[in-house]
């Protein structure tokens, strides 16, 4: 044989951060495309919620305190978008833990690439995945449930972008948790325990005014209320108030998540 195993013709000495992120993002997306069941299954849960809630709570639209002239599906859908983005953020953490477990990250660590590149790539590919999920959910809602809010296409797309931003910020929190816990089951449990009550103790499914007093207090300080209110205002063409708060909170979460994720990730496997 003429080829040598190691003797170099050219020696590669590593590459710039941009290429690292690009190549690593492509890698995660390729895994996603090779197994699209992940996307399909990940929209099942929000779809079930959408179906159940739109039927069970439909009569809430006739109660006092509910915005007049708004159908429940138009009220509900923005919350479902935010919820889907949040579930998806949790999956970002789970994905990172999976990479740690199957040894791919150990390989990356022995290569001349930056820790941050691996995390940014993970986060970017999850952003793409979340966008795909949100669009899919939106189509379901429009075609099957007759979602057609007053905000029109522009409002809906703005709400979608906002949900994406919220999910992205929160995704960094879960990446941080993942790089410290390093355990998928624990991640799922922590995520579920944190997010499930927060989702209900917010303006997501019923107007805050319809909640019991103590829950109203929780809902009013719950960051998810800001996100849901903002997404809803965009969809329903209501005066938009919460967008800046929602984006600020997400950016803050993202920043804190980034700092802890990089620190946690640097620790030896």
């Amino acid at each position, binding site marked *: *044989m003429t*080829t*040598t*195993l*190691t*003797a*170099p*013709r*050219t*020696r*590669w*000495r*590593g*590459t710039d951060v941009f*290429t*690292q992120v690009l*190549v*690593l993002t492509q*890698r995660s997306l*390729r*895994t996603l495309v*090779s*197994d699209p069941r992940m996307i399909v299954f990940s929209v099942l849960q929000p779809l079930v919620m959408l179906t159940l809630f739109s039927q069970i709570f439909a009569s809430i639209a006739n109660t006092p305190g509910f915005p007049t002239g708004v159908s429940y599906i138009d009220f509900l859908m923005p919350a479902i978008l935010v919820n889907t983005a949040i579930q998806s953020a949790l999956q970002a953490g789970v994905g990172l833990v999976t990479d740690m477990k*199957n*040894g*791919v990250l*150990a*390989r*990356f*660590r*022995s*290569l*001349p*690439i930056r820790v941050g590149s691996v995390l940014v790539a993970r986060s970017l590919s999850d952003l793409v995945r979340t966008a795909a999920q949100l669009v899919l959910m939106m189509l379901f809602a429009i075609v099957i449930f007759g979602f057609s809010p007053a905000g029109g296409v522009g409002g809906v797309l703005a709400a979608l972008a906002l949900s994406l931003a919220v999910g992205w910020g929160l995704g960094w929190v879960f990446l941080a948790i993942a790089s410290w816990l390093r355990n998928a089951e624990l991640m799922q449990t922590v995520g579920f325990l944190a997010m499930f009550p927060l989702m209900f103790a917010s303006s997501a499914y019923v107007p805050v005014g319809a909640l019991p007093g103590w829950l109203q207090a929780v809902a009013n300080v719950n960051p998810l209320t800001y996100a849901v209110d903002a997404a809803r205002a965009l969809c329903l063409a209501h005066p938009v108030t919460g967008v800046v708060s929602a984006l600020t909170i997400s950016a803050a979460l993202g920043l804190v998540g980034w700092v802890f994720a990089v620190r946690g990730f640097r620790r*030896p*496997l």
Partner: protein
Amino acid sequence: MNDLMIKASDVGKAFGDRQALDGVSIAVPRGTVLGLLGHNGAGKTTLVNVLTTMLPPDRGTAEVAGFDVVREAHQVRSRIGLTGQFAAVDEGLSGLDNLVLIARLLGASTREARARAAELLELFDLVDAAKRPSRTYSGGMRRRLDLAASLVGHPEVIFLDEPTTGLDPAARLGLWEVVERLVTDGTTVLLTTQYLDEADRLADSITVLAQGRVVATGTSAELKAQVGQRSVTVTLADRSDLPKAQEALERAGLHPVPAADTLTAPVTSSRELAVVVRALDEVGLEATELALGEPTLDDVYLTLAAHAA
């Protein structure tokens, strides 16, 4: 000219209050194979992790390919290859895509990356499976892909951490041949193993680690001479007699080491079997089983423990 490709001086690393590495120094000249021999927990993997920049040492310094593993980690990483105990491949990607990914991350263009991947797939007999997701690969194929992945960047130094653990004999032999070719190409190899025969076959020099310390260094021949040729294992009918038997053997000038219900003592020749029998007879004990063993890693430990005592 200083041509040491791996140089570690007094490297220490503790996990909590367990001292995983306690002042380890090694030196590996270019184009040679160092066999790092030791049981589980001896510190082999920790040392590999320090040398491959994955784990910063608590004390001491280490250089690989002339670069400091802490301050110049980036330079070290572009010159080494690592194959760990578990195949570190992306199961969602095909074998081809796995290798292209590594090459791209090392700085190859897409074209160069594809060419290098094709070359390695050929060499490791993975051409037919190149486009299948690696999650469908058998254990042996995965390990081959993993090894191929560690060679993508034409590394100057390769770390093989128990590369043959869990491989069948044929695959083990295949891997040995690959290592021999690497050395022919001028690559420096650090190989950790629990098997004396593996180190014997591949390594130019062997370092024995126990409890985070270097307990012996030398060529295979030198170590064997130090180990003694054989050891005798004594099994007694009643295990409560073990302390008595141990005393008797010690009086006879041997260095027995007790296990659960046996005593093992290194011997220099088979004639010492008679010494054992006589010593036991003097205290009125009889062995139900007397076994003469060829030198193993255990014997290296036993001997070294006896020397230390």
